[in-house]
C-alpha cells in the first residue's frame, strides 16, 4: 500500500498548487466562453420572449395594439418593466387610439397531469373574459390537450361573463352567460382551466376595481 503510494509520488506528483492552478484556469476559461455565448445570444432570446408574450396578450385581448406591464405592490398597480422574482404582474392592453381595452391576467394551478399556466384577457367595462391562451401544460395528448388544441373549447372564452362564477358544464346542457362547454373525455382538464381562471379572478378583480380610480387613467 505504502510502496505503491511512494512510486506514485516518485512518478512526479504535481503539487497542490498546480492542481489549484489547473482548476482555476479551467474555470476562468469556461466562465469566459460562457459569458461570451450569453452576451451573443441574449438579445435574440430576450426579443423572442418579449414577442411570444406580446402575441399572447394581443391574442387574448382582441383589438389591442400596445401593452404595459403592471406590478401590484403596496395595494397599488404601477407600470414596471423590470421583472423581479416574486412579482405579481398583469398586463394592460391599449387599442390604436390609446384607450385602455382590458387586462391580460396570468394564472397557474394543478391540471390533470402537471401544472397548467395560462393567460386570459379581462375587459372590466363588460365584466367579461375576452380570450384564453394556454402557455404551458402537460395534459394527456389526444384528450386533455384539447384545452388548447380544440378551437371550440378555446372559443368558449371569447366573451364569457365572470359573474357569478365560471362553470364547466356538459355539452348540450342549458347554459348561463358564465358557463362553458366541458370537453368530452377531458372534464378534469376543462374544470382545471375554469378553476385557475376563477381563482385568478378572485385575486385580481377586486384589485383592479380598487385601482381603477381616476388617478389610474392614462
Amino acid at each position, binding site marked *: 500500500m505504502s510502496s505503491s503510494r511512494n512510486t506514485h509520488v516518485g512518478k512526479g506528483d*504535481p503539487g497542490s498548487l*498546480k*492542481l489549484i492552478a*489547473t*482548476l482555476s484556469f*479551467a*474555470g476562468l*476559461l*469556461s466562465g469566459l*466562453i*460562457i459569458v461570451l*455565448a*450569453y452576451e*451573443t*445570444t441574449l438579445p*435574440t*432570446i430576450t426579443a*423572442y420572449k418579449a414577442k*411570444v408574450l406580446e402575441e399572447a396578450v394581443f391574442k387574448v385581448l382582441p383589438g389591442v395594439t400596445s401593452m404595459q406591464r403592471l406590478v401590484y405592490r403596496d395595494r397599488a398597480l404601477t407600470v414596471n418593466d423590470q421583472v423581479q422574482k416574486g412579482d405579481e404582474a398583469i398586463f394592460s392592453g391599449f387599442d390604436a387610439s390609446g384607450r385602455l381595452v382590458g387586462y391580460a391576467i396570468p394564472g397557474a394551478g394543478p391540471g390533470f397531469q402537471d401544472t397548467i399556466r395560462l393567460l386570459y384577457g379581462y375587459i372590466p367595462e363588460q365584466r367579461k373574459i375576452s380570450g384564453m391562451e394556454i402557455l404551458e401544460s402537460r395534459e*394527456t*395528448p*389526444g*384528450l386533455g390537450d384539447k384545452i388548447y388544441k380544440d378551437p371550440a373549447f378555446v372559443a368558449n372564452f371569447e366573451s364569457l361573463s365572470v359573474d357569478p362564477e365560471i362553470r364547466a358544464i356538459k355539452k348540450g346542457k342549458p347554459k348561463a352567460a358564465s358557463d362553458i362547454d366541458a370537453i368530452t373525455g377531458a372534464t378534469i382538464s376543462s374544470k382545471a382551466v375554469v378553476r385557475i381562471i376563477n381563482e385568478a379572478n378572485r385575486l385580481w378583480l377586486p384589485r383592479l376595481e380598487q385601482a381603477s380610480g381616476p388617478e389610474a387613467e392614462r
Partner: protein
Amino acid sequence: MAKHKEDLHQEFIKGIWRDNPVFVQVLGMCPMLAVTNTAVNALAMGAATFFVLVGSSFLVSSLRLWIPRQVRISTYIIIIATFVTVTDFTLEALVPKIHKELGAFIPLIVVNCMILGRQEAFASRNSVRLAVMDALGMAAGFLFALLSLGTVREILGEGKLFGFSLFGPDFEPWVIMILPPGGFLTLGLLLLFFSWVKERKQRLEQRLTQLESEAQ
C-alpha cells in the same frame, strides 16, 4: 499509413453498431427516453449531444498532457458543462420552440454518463484524431438510437413522422407511445430485438464452425 486509416475508420464504426452507447452499453438513458416522443425532438437532442461530445473529446484529448490526474474528473466536468451551457443558449436563440419542448433536459446532458465515460475511457488516453473519430462514432450511434426511438414512438403514437401525417385520418393513434410508459416499452422492445439479432448471429456462427469441423 493504410493501417492507420483503418484504425480511424474502426473507431468511428464501432460507436454506431458494435458498441452503440444506447443499445449495447445502455448509457445515457434519461434524455434517451424523456425527449424521444417525436422524431424532431430526438433529432435536436441528438444534435446537441453530438456537439457537446465531439467538442469535449477534442478539448480533453488535446489538453490531456496538461491535466493532472487528481483533478481530471472535475476538469472534464467543467469542460462538458461549458459546452452544454453554450449549446443551451445557442438552441434557445436559434430554435426557441424546440428548446422549450426539451426544456430541462438540455442542461441534463452534463450528467449523461456516456459523455463523461468517453472522456475518461478514451479521449484522455488517445491522440486528438482518434479521440475525435471515437466521439463522432459514439455521438452518431447515440443520434441513431434517439432517432429510431423517436421515429417509432411518433409513428405509433401520433401517426406522423416529422410532423407529416402518414396514415390519414382513420388511424387511431396509440397515445400511450408518446406518454412515459411508451418510452420504457419501446426501448425495452428495441433492446430485446438487438439481443435477438445478436443471438441469431452467434447461433449461425456456431453452426458454421460445427459444419466446418464435421466436413474435416
